[in-house]
């Protein structure tokens, strides 16, 4: 099995706090890989590092054999044409209709005729089930529909890799089901490599071929869905079962309550 993305000894710091510390991660080609972890552990940051929007302090990030942090501007832009990314909010262009949103990457990067672009856009919209919504503006779409349109836009250029940032957060059960089905079927039908970043345990486990759980700057568990749920690490158990207290404490670090209450004078 060949890996599309290979991350070795990655270190990334923000304001002197290490978000990642010597992380190794491998994303196999043609599979759905999920990266899970509590909020604030830098899951979105990881996607931006892969996309070259951020530069790591140390380590190597190879996408399709190319070392992302050292690529030139042109090299990076050429690589990005082979990636699609779905942002948490969708990131649709608010001044363009659904149709024009999906057509945008085609118009920017190809010299296709209008008729050709029209057919391609309608095909992509058909895949996400929104061909009928092509004349709506993004403000008229529900959150789930906006994500599906963004998905159609992300696959417009037929990328090899598609990355989802929190695709399930804030969705009702129906949209969630639709998205789960779409992500899986697009991966299989188009032969994509999929990376999902999420903290929705059940949905993510149901479609992922391989799962990484990250917390505290490092990988705390990896394996296929079964191996992860069997994992013995207390951090992993707390995250998977949503326990309120555990290795991640309920209390934000502070003095003892007694000391704080007695020290009322010096606020």
């Amino acid at each position, binding site marked *: 099995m060949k890996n599309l993305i290979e991350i070795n000894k990655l270190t990334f710091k923000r304001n002197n706090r290490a978000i990642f510390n010597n992380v190794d991660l491998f994303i196999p080609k043609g599979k759905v890989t999920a990266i899970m972890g509590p909020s604030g552990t830098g899951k979105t940051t990881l996607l931006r590092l892969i996309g070259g*929007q951020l530069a790591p302090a140390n380590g190597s990030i190879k996408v399709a054999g190319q070392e992302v942090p050292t690529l030139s501007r042109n090299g990076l*832009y050429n690589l990005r044409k082979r990636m699609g*990314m779905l942002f*948490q*909010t969708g*990131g*649709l262009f*608010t001044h363009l209709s659904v149709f024009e949103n999906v057509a945008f990457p085609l118009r920017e*990067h190809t010299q296709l005729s209008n008729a050709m672009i029209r057919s391609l856009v309608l095909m992509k919209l058909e895949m996400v089930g929104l061909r009928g919504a092509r004349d709506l503006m993004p403000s008229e779409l529900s959150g789930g529909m906006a994500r599906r349109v963004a998905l159609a*836009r992300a696959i417009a250029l037929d990328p090899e890799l598609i990355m989802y940032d929190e695709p399930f957060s804030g969705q009702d059960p129906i949209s969630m089901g639709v998205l789960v089905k779409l992500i899986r079927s697009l991966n299989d039908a188009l032969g994509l490599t999929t990376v999902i970043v999420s903290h929705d345990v059940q949905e993510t486990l149901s479609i992922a071929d391989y799962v990484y759980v990250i917390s505290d700057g490092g990988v705390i568990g990896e394996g296929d869905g079964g191996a992860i749920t069997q994992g013995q690490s207390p951090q992993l158990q707390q995250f998977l079962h949503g326990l309120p207290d555990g290795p991640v404490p309920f209390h934000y670090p502070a003095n003892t309550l007694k000391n704080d209450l007695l020290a009322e004078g010096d606020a």
Partner: protein
Amino acid sequence: MINQVEALGRLGIDVIRKYGKAGILLYGAIFRVPNFRKGFALVVQQIFAEGVLSLLIIMVSALFIGMVVALQGYHTLSKFGASQQLGPLVALSVARELGPVVTALLFAGRAGSALAAEIGLMKATDQLSSMEMMAVDPLQRVIAPRFWGGFISMPLLTIIFNIVAIYGAYLVGVKWLGMDAGAFWSNMQSSVEFHADILNGIYKSVVFGVVVTWIALYQGYDAVPTSAGIANATTRTVVYSSLAVLGLDFVLTAMMIGEW
């Protein structure tokens, strides 16, 4: 003490960094122009958004400013028996100062704040990031056309402001106060110089166009991607660009009078 020195130093470095970032933005906007055919359509759209949509407020303000300058000027001049000089008074003050400065201030309020809000919103809703991930450079696709739109719109708006303000003065001076139309125009013509007065005013407006658009774009691009951040960015756009316009106006006027 050491802490305060450190804070001051940090502030200084932050300020310099901001100028650096703004400089890079301007550089990108000017030199990363998209290919001509696509870029042209985008710039036309921006001339529409920044220029044509500002036209109404510019023209209405110009009419009133011209009328009020004429009214004030007429009463002051007639004390010296020089009310015949109303034409030159209005034309010179409008062409040299009021035209470029008031247009720039109105432009900052109308188009500048809209630009900052639009770009801040695009940033907050990940539109700029998704553009980057689609291998489209936001500097080229979003910032550059807006910059050139402002650069082109501002002098055009100033020219229109000038003509409307002078027409307003004509209405008050000739139609209302009963001055002789021939004297109004001929006195104006003999004291207004095309290069020294009218062209210099337009040069000023080009500089203001660059500065106001630049400030608006930078504030939007650098905004904190939240609602409060966007609100801040629009406020700062109006405040900073108004100050910059008034300060630069003094510098430019001094340069022009000093036969630069």
